[in-house]
């Protein structure tokens, strides 16, 4: 039995081991592969960037749970960092379902370490869960104070300077929804179509395709698709001198690139082996 015969019949556990190594090594030692910025990401970044100095707030909604966390959490962290650095007021919302709120809390904790001068209540506010699903989106159009009453920590919203000033979509420059489900479409249907508030979206790589039409029609200002979108946002922060902390998405992208190339390599080698063996068998 020649090399190729053995290679073709290789125990699949070797393949698993190689995949595992290909993921772990870039995580331990980031490769720093280049990141290309695509228009949907740039548009969202620029839109938020232009809000600097205006008296409107960013409303960031975390509508995902641990299953899509690897892709969506870095987006949330990057956007919060962007707002903190430019002193753009930001309202972080723990999402339409109760299990989402932990994600938002994690993102705030990860982002705020690099910004010691940020003041809770003035620069950002954290809203927790209230029941009602899409009714919440509508209700924010009337009054945030009326909808939530208190923030996540139990402070009355009419005592916090930010929410005293920002009470509905009139003072919200953009709603950014992070979700791998159909929830961004609800924000478009209720907040944008009904109240004219602009919407941005961060979604998983798999869902990105279904949201491209929203981008074309302008219903989304911009969109971050999957780990790649998050990595691009981190790259934009870096280029503009905003501290990015540990660039989780960029590092993840390294691992992803390596595994992609590994799979491609496996397919190519598999086919070389296949043709070699077949040719030899035909001769024989």
């Amino acid at each position, binding site marked *: 039995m020649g090399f190729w015969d053995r290679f073709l019949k290789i125990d699949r556990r070797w393949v*698993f081991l190689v995949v595992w190594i290909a993921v772990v090594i870039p995580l331990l030692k980031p490769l720093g592969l280049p990141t*290309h910025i695509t228009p949907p990401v740039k548009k969202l970044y620029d839109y938020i960037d232009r809000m600097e100095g205006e008296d409107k707030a960013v409303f960031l909604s975390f509508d995902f749970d641990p299953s899509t966390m690897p892709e969506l959490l870095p987006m949330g962290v990057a956007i919060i960092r962007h707002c903190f650095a430019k002193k753009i007021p930001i309202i972080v919302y723990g999402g339409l379902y109760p299990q989402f709120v932990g994600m938002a809390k994690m993102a705030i904790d990860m982002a705020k370490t690099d910004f010691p001068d940020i003041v809770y209540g003035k620069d950002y506010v954290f809203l927790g869960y209230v029941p009602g699903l899409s009714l919440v989106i509508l209700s924010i159009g009337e009054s945030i104070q009326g909808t939530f009453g208190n923030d996540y920590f139990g402070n009355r919203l009419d005592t916090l300077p930010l929410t005293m000033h920002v009470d509905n979509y009139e003072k919200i420059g953009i709603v950014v929804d992070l979700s791998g489900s159909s929830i961004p479409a609800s924000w478009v249907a209720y907040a944008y179509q009904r109240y004219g508030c602009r919407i941005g979206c961060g979604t998983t*790589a798999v869902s990105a395709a279904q949201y491209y039409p929203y981008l074309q029609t302008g219903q989304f200002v911009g969109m971050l698709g999957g780990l790649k979108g998050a990595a691009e946002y981190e790259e934009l922060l870096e280029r503009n001198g905003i501290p990015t902390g540990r660039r989780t998405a960029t590092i993840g992208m390294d691992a992803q690139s390596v595994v992609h*190339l590994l799979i*491609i390599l496996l*397919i190519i080698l598999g*086919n070389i082996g*296949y043709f070699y063996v077949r040719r030899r068998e035909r001769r024989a």
Partner: protein
Amino acid sequence: MRRTFPLVIAFTMGLLMMIQYFIPHPISQKFYKIMVQQWLIIISIFFYVFAWRSFGLYHINKIKRRKEGWWASVVAFVGVFFMLLAGFGDRIPGGIGHFIYKYFNFDDLYNYMFAPLQATMFSLLAFFIASAAFRAFKARTMEATLLLVTATIVMLGRVPLGASMWKGLPKVVEWILMYPNMAAQRGIMIGVGLGMIATSMKIILGIERSYLGGE
């Protein structure tokens, strides 16, 4: 009563639910709401009893007969017990409830046992996708070649390296996804859609009865 009447029920319900779709009047909407949000869900609750019964019998049988690996069935029951304890036990007034809330917190159980198991099982896909691609993507026939070549191009186009090899690659990938891929997806969806409608019609008309079990 045994054979015909269930078919009459299926026919009536099917027809009503179908017609309801074309009537925006509140009466029709209310009918829809009551059916979909209340009745059908309430009926389905009862079938959970079968699920629990079957789960219980399967594992009790293993434990009773001391079948190989019966200890694992005990573990399964422990899992059920933990979740029930955490989910309901914290309502017990007084110290016990407090103890359960502190040490068997439902959220902790969910976040540190249930969710990691779920996510890890899901992530096995990354390994299997590689082994499946290696094994199956061989240019044996024209069809197989097409499959592996498109898969390779799309994979390459999704990483930054692909774009730096050739600037046009992401555009090509987008085109493949938008046109030939979409075309086949649409074809499949139309086929499945028609097949499903035909099946539904056969159910309403009482031709398809496999769901009722044996005659």
